[in-house]
Structures are given as C-alpha cells and as structure tokens.
C-alpha cells in the first residue's frame, strides 16, 4: 500500500476507477480535477478527516487495490463535513475568502454577461473591457498576487497542491489573453467561450482553496506567521491603485442590470 501513497491520484484512479467513488464518499472530489498530480498521501493529509474516517478511507482504498487481501474496514463515526463556512479561518485567510466572495459574484454573472456581449459599439466594448479588467486587476493582480508573492512563500512551492493552484492561475491568464485578442477582432463568440471557461476554472479553483487549501494552510501557520501575513496583506490593500470597492460597484451594477 505504501507505494500507492506516493503515487499521483489520477494515475491511481486510472488504474482503479473505484477509488474515485471511495474518495467521493468523503467529499474528496479528485475526479473532476484537471491536473491530478497530488499524491494520495497528501490528499489524505490535506482533507483533515477525523482520524476514524481517515482510517476507514485508507482501508477502503486498500481493499480496492488489494481485493484478495483480508483488510478490515473500521467503523467510523458519523461523517463531519469540513465546509468552508464551518472553518474558523485566521484573519489573513478570511481576507482571501472574502475576496473570493467578490469574484464569485462576478462569476455568477458571466453566463448572462456572455449572452449579451456587444462588440460593435464603443460602450459595449468598454463594458467587456471592464469585465476583463475585473479578472485581470482584481482576481489576478490583487488577489492571486497576494497568494503568489506572499502566502505561498510560507510553504513549499514545490508541493503538488500549490503547483495545481499556480497552474490554475496560469490557465486563467491564458484565457484572459484569448479574450483580449478576440475583442480586438470583435469576435463575440470566442470572448463568450473564454468567459465561460474562466467561470468553470475559477468556480472549481475557489472551492479547492476555500475548502481544502486555506484550512490546510491555516493549520500549518504559527501565530507569528498569521500576524505577519495579516500585516503584509494590509500593506497590499493600502498600496493598490484602484480601490477594491470600485469592482464591487461594477458588479452591483451588473447584478441590477441582469436581475
């Protein structure tokens, strides 16, 4: 079993598809992950299951991998979900979660926004640019930069879970580039397709961060580090060119428009 702990989860699921169902039973959704390079042992550690559930999960996976072996599956207490709203984030992590709320409001508007793209008029193109700017300036330059330049530096940046997040950021930037190129060509269809792809990417990315990455990181951070992060994020907030409130106003206007 030990050799499987150090293997990528996608590889294990490919070889033993039933493992995905076992993980799903514990709300560990590795199946839809586009990258899947996390090692099985890291996935178990990151999801912070109660000890009895972790033992049960591992026994069930072992049973799938070695069906011929006599593996006893221990009973576990009733499942306790670790949803983001139940987790007591430290103040710097709470800041990041609150920024996600703004991004999620924008993501929720994307289907309607994408349906109503006007690439012909000056005002229509301005509106599309404002939407893309929210992704570039708020979600990426402001929020993702806090993660990449500050938060992730407190951890091993070679850890698979962080690599996955960085790949998501890179993917998001590529989609924005596509949107801008399509806007130049007044190609509404490509802009819409990229906006929808961005929506899908960020929905899953935020869920992974809120429910898995941030709680895991919070459990690793010392009190000293929590204070340092809080001060560093505060410094970023003070130095930002455009007030984050500007983007919230933009979103509120769109929410009114598409209500």
């Amino acid at each position, binding site marked *: 079993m030990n050799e499987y702990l150090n293997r990528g989860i996608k590889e294990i699921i490919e070889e033993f598809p039933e493992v995905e169902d076992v993980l799903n039973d514990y709300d560990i959704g590795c199946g839809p992950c586009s990258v899947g390079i996390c090692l099985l042992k890291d996935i178990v550690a990151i999801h912070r299951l109660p000890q009895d559930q972790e033992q049960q999960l591992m026994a069930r996976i072992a049973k799938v991998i070695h069906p011929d072996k006599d593996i006893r599956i221990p009973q576990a207490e009733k499942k306790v979900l670790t949803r983001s709203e139940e987790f007591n984030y*430290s103040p710097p992590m709470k800041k990041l979660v609150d920024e996600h709320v703004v991004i999620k409001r924008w993501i929720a508007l994307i289907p309607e926004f994408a349906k109503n793209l006007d690439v012909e008029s000056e005002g229509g193109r301005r509106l599309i640019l404002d939407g893309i700017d929210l992704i570039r300036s708020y979600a990426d330059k402001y929020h993702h930069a806090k993660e990449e330049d500050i938060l992730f530096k407190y951890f091993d940046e070679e850890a698979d879970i962080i690599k996955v997040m960085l790949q998501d950021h890179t993917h998001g930037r590529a989609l924005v580039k596509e949107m801008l190129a399509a806007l130049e060509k007044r190609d509404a269809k490509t802009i819409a397709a990229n906006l929808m792809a961005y929506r899908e990417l960020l929905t899953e990315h935020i869920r992974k961060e809120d429910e898995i990455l941030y709680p895991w990181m919070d459990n690793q951070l010392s*009190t000293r580090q*929590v204070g340092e992060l*809080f001060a560093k994020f505060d410094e970023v907030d003070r130095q930002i060119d455009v007030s984050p409130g500007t983007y919230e106003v933009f979103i509120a206007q769109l929410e009114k428009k598409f209500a």
Partner: protein
Amino acid sequence: MDKSDGCPGSRMMNFKKAAEMNTGPAVGKIKSQLTQWPIQMHLINPAAPYYQGADVLLTADCVAYALGDFHRDYLKDKSIAIACPKLDQGQDVYLEKIRAWIDDAKINTLTVLIMQVPCCMGLMNLARQAADGSKRKVPIKYVVVGVQGEILQEEWAAA
C-alpha cells in the same frame, strides 16, 4: 466531583482523582518560557521593548494553573500580561494598555486566554473593546480553558 450552588466562577469543585490519573510520562524539568518581568497588567508598561512587534498573550490569572502545557503550548515565543477581570480594580487602565499595544507597540497578534467561568468573559470583552477603539487592526485569537485544563474553544476573531 463536589459542588455547591452559587457563581460558577467560585463554585467549589474537587477533581483530585482526575489529576492523579493525569501523571503522563516523566520528561524531566519543564523549562520556563517566561522572558520578561513584570507580567501583571497594572505593573506592565505597554511600551516595553518586549512588546514591540510581539505576539502577546493576555491571560486570565487562573489559566496558567489550569493549563498543564501552558508554557510549552502558549507562552513560548510570546510576551505576556495577566489580569483577573473579576477581581482587579481600575480596568479602564487595562483598556488603554491594550490599545497602546496595538497602536503604539504595533504588536503582531493578540491571544486572549480565559477560563470557562462566565466572569472571565470580561477579559475577552475588554480586548474586543480595545481592538475596536484602535487605529490598527491585528489578528486576535480567543482561547477558552476548562477548569481541568482542557481547551474548550480556540478561534480567531473577525478582524
């Protein structure tokens, strides 16, 4: 466990048997993690060098007696002040000192440790009030300790 009626903060309880059972492994002498003096809230100077940029513990007097691993788990690498929200006089001075920690000494974090008894909530409220009146914001953590040394609650307050 014996108990009498009245205020939970001063109700008589006896958990000698439980304490005898908690002998744990012998690990030799436990080194003190205290790195400053004085520690009583009326006696401390919030501008003292050991509070500058520090992670500060504001601890109810009884906590260190109840919590067996207080030095190792909480005091290590932190500066401290102690107070009793039930018996201490002149607590408006405490309010000013906490504000001075946050605004002037620019402390990094504040951890408030209290006992589970209701009167101890006063220390938590004092910290909240001081933080609300401060210009700077710092992460504040609240820890509630049971009378037999168990951690009942440990959470960060909304900044």
